[in-house]
């Protein structure tokens, strides 16, 4: 017989108001220096980490959820800023970019059977892209329907788009486009939409501190006729340095959503103006109407990263306040912060860091309940 006497009292339902998250597992990454980027593969079964220690590590998740490092190797002669996976249709392929002015493409080679038993694999360098004269700040693969295409951006203000025409031969890459953005580039993001209604499009962010040059976000679009990328829009309202940029996955919408990490978190809506089809293909890129959807300055100073979850229902941002914040829109398109991750000031030190999930739950739930109750009284 279910005890229904415990009708929720005030306090309990306040606790229910918050999305309770907890640290399920802590993985000792064993990098010798700062980790700069962590990237899940497409299916979420592998991840890659890169560091100032110039190496990349690849981790595999076992069935019980534990992570094992299956490869670790030196990739560059400088800090590795970003690491990213190609779509699994192209096999097991990684790209990395570094302060050493290069980007590199890596492919996993299926090892000998005894390697497999030991749970190890080998990654070999397929190519090094050396065209940049300055630190390569971001590397991203283009949406898979465009083929195997890699994009880099550098502090020298150039975006480079490379293509591997033969996906079975990853040592051959050709530089297809070199786009000068005039401002030092810090980040790129491809519009993931593969709809024929939207030609290939990417956004570039600049962390140039020079304020005389206006907008720090530029949108480029591919033109079928000229076979080149042309600038479709500059977001003039973004005048401060931009550190990260992310298009949201397109879910059947007619417009695009772009999140920007600058001195605050900003979410823009880019609406293609429906002009006469014939006209639009010949006179250049689609005109975009730019609308700001949300702006948050909770991180206090700079926001360094923004990223959408897989279903684009949540946006996460990381900032100078040392927190990661989660943002969500309700069905009326009102955005709110729904969760915060924050360092508690006691980092793990042991190499076998495996805090028991339970104690962390109690810890975090007590903490969150305390916060919720504090928040409740403070807010009123």
């Amino acid at each position, binding site marked *: 017989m279910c*005890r229904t006497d415990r009708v929720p009292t005030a306090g*309990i339902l*306040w606790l229910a108001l918050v999305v309770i998250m907890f640290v399920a597992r*802590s993985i000792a990454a064993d990098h010798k220096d700062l980790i700069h980027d962590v990237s899940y593969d497409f299916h979420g*079964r592998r991840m890659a*980490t890169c560091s100032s220690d110039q190496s990349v590590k690849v981790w595999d998740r076992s069935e019980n959820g534990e992570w094992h490092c299956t490869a670790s190797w030196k990739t560059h002669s400088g800090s590795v800023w970003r690491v990213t996976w190609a779509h699994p249709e192209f096999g097991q392929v990684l790209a990395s970019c570094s302060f050493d002015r290069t980007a590199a493409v890596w492919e996993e080679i299926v090892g000998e059977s005894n390697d497999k038993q030991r749970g190890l694999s080998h990654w070999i360098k397929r190519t090094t892209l050396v065209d940049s004269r300055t630190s390569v700040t971001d590397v991203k693969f283009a949406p898979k329907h465009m083929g195997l295409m890699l994009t880099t951006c550098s502090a020298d203000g150039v975006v480079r788009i490379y293509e591997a025409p033969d996906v079975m031969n990853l040592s051959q890459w050709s530089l297809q486009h070199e786009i000068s953005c005039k401002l030092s580039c810090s980040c790129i993001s491809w519009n993931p939409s593969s709809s024929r209604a939207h030609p290939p499009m990417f956004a570039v962010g600049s962390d140039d501190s020079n304020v005389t040059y206006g907008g720090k976000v530029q949108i480029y679009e591919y033109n079928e006729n000229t076979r080149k990328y042309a600038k479709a829009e500059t977001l003039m309202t973004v005048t401060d340095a931009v550190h990260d940029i992310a298009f949201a996955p397109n879910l059947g919408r007619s417009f695009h959503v772009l999140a920007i990490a600058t001195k605050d978190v900003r979410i823009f809506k880019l609406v293609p103006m429906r002009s006469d089809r014939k006209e639009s293909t010949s006179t250049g890129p689609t005109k975009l109407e730019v609308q700001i959807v949300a702006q948050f300055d909770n991180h206090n100073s700079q926001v360094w990263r923004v990223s959408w979850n897989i279903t684009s229902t949540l946006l996460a941002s990381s900032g100078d306040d040392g*927190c990661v914040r989660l943002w969500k829109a309700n069905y009326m398109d009102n955005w709110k912060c729904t969760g915060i991750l924050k360092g508690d000031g006691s980092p793990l030190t042991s190499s076998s860091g495996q805090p028991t999930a339970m104690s962390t739950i109690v810890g975090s739930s007590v903490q*969150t309940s305390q916060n919720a109750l504090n928040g409740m009284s403070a807010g009123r």
Partner: protein
Amino acid sequence: MEELDVEPAITNIPAASDGKHLGFAWGPGDILAYETLYMAPGSGCSFIHEVRKDEDIYSPILRKLFNESHHIFVGLQTIREDLPSKNKKTQFVSISKNYRSVIRACMEELQQVAETLHPYMKTSVLVLQVSILLAIELIWNLCEVLFIDAAPAGPLLLHLLDWVRLHKGDVDEKAREVLQSESPAEHHDYWDVVVSYVLQGRFEEARQMLVKQATLQPAARNMYKLMDTLLSKMPFYNPGGTQTLTEFDVKWRHWHEEVDRCLQDNSFASNQHLEIICKILVGDEDTLLEHKELLSTWYHFLVTRLLFCHPTVKPTELHYYAQSCMTMFLDLRSVPEPLDSILLAAFEFDIHQVIKDCSIALNNWWFVAHLTDLLDHCKLLQSHNLHFGSNLREFLLLEYASGLFTHHSLWQLAVDYFDNCPEFGHVYLELQIERVPLDTERKALKVLRICEQRQMSEQVRSICKIMAMRALRNNRLGSALSWSIRAKDAAFATLISERFLQDYCARGTFSDLDLIDNLGPAMLLSDRLTFLVKYREFHKLYEENRFSEAAKLLLSLITAKIAPRSFWMTLLTDALPLLEQKEVSHNLFVFSSDKLIVKRLPFSLFTSLCSQN
């Protein structure tokens, strides 16, 4: 009504808090967090923390909730539109009760598990989740009474009484305790139990309890008899009976007057407890409010007040009483809780407000998604056009189903939800089904079947390509070939056929003969593949000593121009032993192409090969 505002929870990460940044990466069901520094030098602690939502802790139990409610959901979608509304209403109420019983079952299980946990975990998340489910069931039940069953005046109060009784189970517990004691009538909780029964309109039980007290006080026998009579005569509306509401109202008023007379006559003046009960029966507000502890909630107070003041309350009148009861019951200082706002919105029949507040208040898409879907089927939701053109029901279902997709087995349930979202279900499914990890071939086939059933050809192609690529990397050519055939990927099929042929050249044998021999029309996907199959067939014929057929085939391979250039020498070499067979040379003699010079066969064969150039 003002929108509920919520402070976000802070989750602590065992990482430095001063002067460090927190990096992150989104995963399928989690988010990774790690210490880092953007654009600044420094060393760091290199731990990566996997952060998950609390639901994962008790997801094995919730899984049953998800599974069973999925079953109910799918059944609901198939209810025929053309049924008369009366039949539909009965079905909808029944479905609502099904959902609620599933919630209760889940609650019971969680409670059991919570009780077996370490006693220190009093504020454990499990206990929390039980409370959340309790709230959910309370709200759902009220919605069922007010919106789905839509009881009119008369039955309305009866349903509300049931509702209150269901959620105030501690009365029975206390009663048990009292009855099991040596002298129940002298138990210190005795009168509390009696009054509680009265407050809930459970007069039979109240009377039975009172009998025990009556026997202890023979001197007051008449008073107890009078009370018993009053209690037994209180009219309750009978929905199935022939009495109209007006007739019932008249009867009730008579009874009410009778009770009032007893009060005025001081019939119970010498017994403080009976006097209190009499005042309750007459609906005296002050007396009711003196029993806040027993009522414990304003909505219990509301229903009790209605029971004794206005049992023929109409649905449209509810909100007046609800608001005033809430005001009277709650402290002037206290702030309305989210649960209170939600219930009040329900009493005001503001369905949209109920759903909106529930979405904000409860970190639980399951509830709002299923309830909204049911209310939508009852045609109770006006379609609000949202900014991206969908509606509230679909928005919530998409949220819920997206969450399901990250579970390793529940993702299949999500497919049915997406199927029933006409606007965006398809595109959401396309996006998410690609992410299902293809751990085994069996799982890949399962995913494929779902895609194929829905004509999701791009996803089919992509999944097959991924599997083909994986097989190729692991040198499983046969598997790679069948996947690329399924993907209809001619280029890849060509590539793999080349590998087969290379293998043959290297080792002199073919692998995966079963596959190649039984491809059927699939072999036509690519020229190279066709060649591979035919070439293998040639070898088979040769092994079976069917030389003339073999020769014919070889010749057709040569003339059909599908042989890769690299293979010409091989074909030529293959032809040589054939020429030694008398029947072959004889047949070649007859069936040769017009380019062949009949007499000198080796030369002519060579000529015909050159003519392919």
